[in-house]
């Protein structure tokens, strides 16, 4: 059945297994300013079998054009986030996905962060004092701050304006869904972009440690499925769309 898309709606889609994180995540989502004539919905998927199946469930249960797939331990601190992603999508209709941190090149070993990073400042939380006395209440992003194209984006926040199925056949856990979905968007001809963030738009409260227990299994599947694109940039990959 064909669903009518609501062009004036945002849906946040979260897979969750922890109410403490979820409530704090809601605290920040509820502080976001919603543009006039737009509405915002929050969909939480409890005890999903995998990130991809949870996201597919969320995707099919909303009519929102703009979907924000995010982790329960991500807190959006840019209160104008919805305005900002809207302005980026309106810039170019071929932009299908926006990330907060990304990589213009797919690294040869499949490990995202072995490639040059763009977007969210990797120094955040590293004791650099880079944002000391920053005024988060007054901060506004402007398109003139810039966007940059990416091949892959980090899964902590993935914003889409088009619906493509998440690969829940191959991905049965919580790893690599971001890299697979990025490739999916690029190979469907969409641009993936990352805004320049003069102040951080979010905090990812993962304890400054990434869980790596199942990572290698999916890294190998990724390297096999996307072997021709390893070491390639977003522009090389989009040529194959």
């Amino acid at each position, binding site marked *: 059945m064909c669903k009518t898309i609501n062009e004036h709606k945002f849906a946040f889609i979260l897979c969750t297994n922890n109410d403490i994180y979820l409530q704090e995540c809601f605290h920040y989502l509820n502080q976001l300013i919603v543009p006039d004539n737009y509405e915002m919905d929050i969909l939480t998927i409890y005890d999903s079998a995998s990130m991809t199946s949870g996201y597919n469930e969320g995707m099919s249960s909303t009519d929102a054009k703009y979907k924000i797939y995010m982790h329960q331990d991500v807190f959006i601190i840019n209160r104008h986030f919805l305005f900002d992603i809207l302005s980026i999508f309106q810039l170019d209709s071929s932009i299908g996905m926006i990330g907060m941190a990304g990589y213009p090149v797919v690294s040869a070993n499949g490990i995202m962060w072995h490639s040059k990073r763009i977007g969210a400042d990797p120094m955040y939380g590293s004791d650099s004092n880079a944002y000391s006395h920053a005024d988060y209440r007054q901060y506004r992003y402007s398109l003139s701050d810039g966007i940059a194209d990416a091949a892959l984006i980090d899964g902590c926040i993935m914003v889409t304006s088009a619906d493509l199925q998440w690969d829940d056949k191959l991905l049965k856990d919580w790893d690599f869904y971001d890299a697979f979905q990025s490739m999916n968007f690029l190979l469907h001809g969409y641009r993936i972009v990352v805004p320049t963030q003069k102040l951080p738009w979010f905090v990812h409260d993962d304890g400054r440690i990434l869980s790596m*227990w199942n990572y290698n299994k999916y*890294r190998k599947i990724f390297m096999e499925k996307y072997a021709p694109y390893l070491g390639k940039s977003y522009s090389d990959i989009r040529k194959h769309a």
Partner: protein
Amino acid sequence: MATYQSLNELLQEAERDFQKIDADKSYCFDLYKNMQQHIDLCLGNKQYEALFDLLPYFEEPDSYPQFRNSAETKRIHILLNILKLELKYEKTPFLSTANDYSSIMEQYLLAIFAMRRLELALSEEAMAEAATYLTSIPLTIYAAMFISQNEYFENYGNLFWNLYTCMKPFWTISDKIQWLTWLFERESFQQVILELASLYMEVHNYSRAYQYLTAIPSPTQDIAALISSLKELL
């Protein structure tokens, strides 16, 4: 980022690292379960010293490298470090209101969240809620310091000052001096200097108060007058 002689070297190194993680996985999960049981027992019986039995798991990194791959185990280590200082300086421990592993982890997370609200200062209401929570738990300066150093925080000026403002009625004068001294070492803005000088005057340490006040680059008339009267006193 590391540099590699060849692509093959990069691929081999990644493979070696992942093989190690795979090999450690089940052992690490079992150990983590045992640690939780030990913490349940110690907190249930208020036997805080016995918690230090867990320290070797963290402080012998060659024997237990798998702990680097878990935020939970990292947080247990942080809690042990906090407790060490709290017992040494005879403070009510941060974990003393918790009866088991899950309640201390919940308290730890809520403390991070509240501190972050103070750091970001996005709304007065959010800050007031944060202050209410933080003053309801035994948040020592050691807990506040370890959490701020080991979790995601960046805006230390805001965090330290706003936290100081909310904890001021609950911390001792020496705690307050210690906290502001840490802040002063990072950022010496005027509010901090004035507060430190005032605290030192409260404990009659006029020479330290004078020392801090003279660090103000362009003192107002009132401050200049205070500096000169302190100078006379000394």
